[in-house]
């Protein structure tokens, strides 16, 4: 087991809404080892993006705030640091890649200006030097003729090229952690394959850790070392990718894996399904949050929330009945 870079402990993030405080993330813990890729998977509204924004301290203010827990980056609690220090950490130690590259880039500034901004903010170098570095970096992420591209605006690039620019921005100061929130969801499959391959290549070269947030289990299987499965604001199951896919112990993980159509399965057969739908965050049941959809539900699940149990050193599951799940 390699060294831990980031540890999230019992994170609770809440939002003030008209209906009261909503705990979008409610007691989430996981660790990110150095140089590894951890996938966070779950359906819309399960809290995966809020977890990412909590780590980055980019929650929408004043509605969103971290209520409890710790986010330890090499032992330092990011929740406690001053805003000014967090500004320094963001971009140089941790950076983020967003889903929609068009909204992550400023439409009225040239690519070069946006990239050099990162350098000028964090490093003590001249504008010319920064521009040279930006050109070099764009070439590195596979953008043809980067010296021309730096003079162009985001709308002049294709979706895949824009995402490469966003990746270049995230990498500019060689951060130790990159959080990628659905980085390929807006892209076509052939472009997705290009971007995922690029990210893997850069990770090998630069040795950073990646948190990859996605709803696509295929992307998780192909790129991650470890996976955190989230459901309704909590972690349902966590462990090494291979273990989770071959031996899922939470009924939700198992249901998800069984319900996806696969290329090598027989056609026009009924897919197995997870009945019902995710409960709203305002009407969560007191016990296990998956109970209304769970085929393994028993009396205990109704009122008692399950705690994380260790199946092995690395594999944890929050379900009372994991021993019965084959």
């Amino acid at each position, binding site marked *: 087991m390699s060294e831990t870079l980031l540890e999230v402990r019992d994170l609770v993030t809440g939002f003030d809404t008209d209906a009261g405080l909503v705990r979008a993330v409610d007691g989430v813990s996981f660790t990110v080892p150095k140089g590894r890729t951890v996938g966070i998977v779950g359906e819309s509204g399960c809290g995966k993006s809020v977890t990412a924004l909590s780590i980055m301290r980019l929650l929408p203010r004043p509605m969103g705030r971290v209520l409890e827990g710790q986010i330890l980056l090499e032992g330092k609690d990011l929740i406690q640091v001053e805003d000014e220090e967090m500004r320094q950490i963001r971009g140089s130690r941790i950076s983020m890649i967003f889903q929609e590259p068009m909204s992550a880039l400023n439409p009225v500034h040239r690519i070069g200006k946006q990239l050099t901004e990162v350098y000028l903010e964090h490093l003590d170098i001249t504008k010319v030097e920064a521009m040279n570095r930006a050109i070099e970096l764009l070439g590195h992420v596979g953008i043809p003729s980067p010296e021309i591209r730096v003079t162009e605006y985001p709308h002049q690039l294709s979706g895949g090229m824009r995402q490469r620019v966003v990746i270049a921005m995230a990498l500019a100061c060689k951060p130790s952690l990159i959080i990628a929130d659905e980085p390929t969801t807006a892209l076509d499959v052939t472009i997705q394959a290009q971007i995922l391959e690029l990210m893997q290549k850069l990770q090998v070269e630069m040795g950073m850790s990646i948190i990859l947030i996605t709803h696509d289990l295929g992307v998780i299987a192909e790129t991650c070392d470890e996976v955190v499965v989230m459901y309704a604001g909590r972690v349902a199951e966590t462990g090494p990718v291979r273990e989770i896919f071959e031996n899922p112990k939470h009924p939700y993980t198992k249901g998800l894996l069984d319900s996806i*159509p696969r290329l090598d399965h027989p056609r026009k057969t009924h897919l197995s399904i997870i009945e019902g739908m995710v409960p709203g965050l305002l009407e969560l049941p007191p016990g296990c949050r998956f109970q209304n959809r769970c085929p393994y539900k028993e009396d205990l699940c109704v009122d008692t929330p399950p705690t994380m149990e260790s199946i092995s050193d690395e594999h944890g599951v929050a379900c009372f009945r994991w021993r019965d799940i084959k």
Partner: protein
Amino acid sequence: MSEAAANPLLSLKDLHMHFPVKGGVFLTAKASCRAVDGVSFDIMPGETVGLVGESGCGKSTLGKCIVRLLKPTSGEIHYDGINLGTIGRRRLKPLRREIQMIFQDPADSLNSRHTVRGILEEPFQIQKIGDSTSRQKKVDELLDVVGLPLSAADRFPFEFSGGQRQRIGIARAIALNPKLIICDEPVSALDVSIQSQILNLMLDLQEQFKLSYLFIAHDLAVVKHISDRIAVMYLGRVVEIADADTVYHNPRHPYTRALISAVPVPDPTRKRERIVLSGDVPSPINPPAGCPFHTRCPHVQDICRTEVPKLRNVAGDSERAHSVSCHFDL
């Protein structure tokens, strides 16, 4: 499945849809965007044809041409032997009952100011079918068929989740007992666990009402699951069409191969040879000469840059039908 002698329900013949690109002071047409550029294929009664391709390949435009939300530039659409391009509005109206559409985003395609009952009654009102009592009964039946509670009728679309809204969209599409439904990315906006519920519903409805589907999507795994045949589109053209299993097991076009290899497989033990295509899809406003795929093709030769390959039959011994537009036998 269809017999050899059966007539196709829908037949597309060299369909073109070009949009003018306007510019200049007087907004005159400067160029044209060739969204659909010569597409021909048939859909048999009871069959599902999957249409896959990346964004901008013309797959949605093709769907809109079939339901006549767009009037094609040239080419023919025959439905049940009738050429839809030559008949007038009055004769088209009863045919509209038979071809319906399901859209990608049910939040956008349902009128937010109408109750579910209003939405589902509208098709009957437009086609002047039944009176208010019989329509009410029909709405209740439709809700039951798509698995929604009867209490849903008096609520508004925003009160439902994405999956439930898609059920409403499906109920509206099957209201008038259509024979053909054009499904434009019907499950792409849904979560994985809801997606499988909707796919199962669509399979059930097909069996119950003997529907034909044109299933348009970018997710190859979903398309292969629900389709009998698959057509792969690239830059407005069909580059390969064959039985769904054939397309998956024996793809002959380099683009189809790359597409299949790019789909992430939810199995961490499988390490595959991935064909990563370089570059982006060219613009349909100024498509490359020759084969539209030649700018990204790993097997490109001189002939590809000048001559457009024709869709030709390459069916092997065990294959029912298999056509590919590529100059070479790969």
